[in-house]
């Protein structure tokens, strides 16, 4: 059967296109304009060419914050994706436990990011925080204010607590959409628990997992509020991720040119990595 082409349908996406233009494209164009100029305020700009890009690309500060960001995102994906799948697999599929589990899983997602940061900032304090005080009482040398490792552990735990639920809910949605016939066929074939997971559940979750990986990668790579509230980027610069560094340059130092150049580089890296994730995962999906 020959496919019908009807390009009039494109008019339907016109409102979204306008919305995206105002919320994303115009600000992005402005950032590109800022990135090749210098300003001291009052809407007066001086042409600076590619110098800000050269400065950012040659700065250790930029590369170190990017490496921290990449390590952070890798750790987050390695922990949250398997943990989310594991929890989703073990959640009840029917009965009263379903709404209870769904509400419990949704709770962390409903808390605003700065509140999550405040909760964990207090939670980790060794004088009044439940986590910090308990660890100190057990003789464990924990202090996220002074120790970079403790700061990293706290920020990672906070992110896992806040966002694993998203992976769980997405995987759960994928799991409950699998028809019973698949499980019955697997039972007749005498398939093991692992075989059911590997050949039925995992392929059926592929699309939601793609969304989960993309969302968690982009969110963790652009993380700002939670670590900023908990550690402020410290101790030293140990938890200064790219977004925190960017805000320091743009708002703290009011260096709009370098901040804009860094934003563009940051944007291109996010775009590249998201495209790679998307392409790899959709290719794997197509092969299946």
């Amino acid at each position: 059967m020959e496919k019908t082409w009807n390009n009039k349908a494109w008019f339907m996406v016109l409102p979204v296109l306008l919305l995206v233009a105002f919320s994303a494209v115009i600000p992005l164009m402005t950032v590109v304009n800022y990135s090749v100029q210098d300003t001291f305020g009052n809407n007066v700009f001086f042409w600076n060419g590619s110098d800000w890009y050269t400065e950012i690309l040659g700065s250790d500060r930029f590369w170190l914050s990017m490496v921290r960001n990449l390590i952070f995102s890798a750790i987050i994906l390695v922990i949250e994706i398997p943990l989310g799948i594991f929890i989703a697999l073990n959640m009840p599929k029917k009965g009263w436990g379903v709404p209870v589990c769904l509400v419990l899983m949704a709770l962390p997602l409903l808390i605003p990011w700065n509140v999550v940061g405040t909760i964990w900032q207090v939670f980790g304090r060794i004088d009044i925080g439940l986590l910090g005080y308990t660890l100190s009482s057990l003789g464990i040398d924990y202090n996220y204010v002074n120790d970079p490792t403790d700061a990293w552990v706290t920020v990672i735990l906070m992110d896992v607590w806040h966002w694993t639920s998203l992976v769980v809910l997405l995987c759960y949605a994928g799991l409950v959409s699998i028809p019973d016939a698949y499980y019955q066929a697997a039972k007749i074939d005498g398939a093991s628990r692992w075989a059911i997971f590997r050949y039925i559940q995992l392929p059926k979750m592929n699309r939601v997992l793609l969304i989960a990986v993309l969302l968690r990668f982009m969110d963790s790579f652009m993380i700002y509020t939670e670590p900023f509230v908990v550690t402020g980027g410290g101790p030293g610069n140990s938890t200064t991720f790219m977004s925190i560094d960017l805000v320091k340059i743009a708002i703290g130092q009011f260096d709009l040119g370098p901040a804009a150049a860094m934003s563009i580089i940051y944007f291109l890296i996010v775009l590249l990595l998201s495209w790679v994730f998307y392409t790899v995962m959709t290719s794997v999906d197509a092969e299946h």
Partner: protein
Amino acid sequence: MNLTWMAWTLPTALFFITILVLLCGMAVWEYASPGGNPRIGVLRFETTRGDRLFVSLLGSAFIHLAWLGLVGPNLWWALALSVVYAVGVFRYV
């Protein structure tokens, strides 16, 4: 409409006009030859000509950044390299 807050310059305006012309060109190409010409190239996965434009533009951005970081501020050679790269992408990817 006052657009001074966007801090427009001639080079950045030319850059965005080029992108717009490319997108319009792709729309005309799609109108003349619908379907996006999907094929499997050297990357071993299916790409349409829209994908190939995206890969060309993204790659060109990184070529320019690499040139700035490793060679110097004269970007004409980076532009030439990007054009060669884009032709390669449209031919082989």
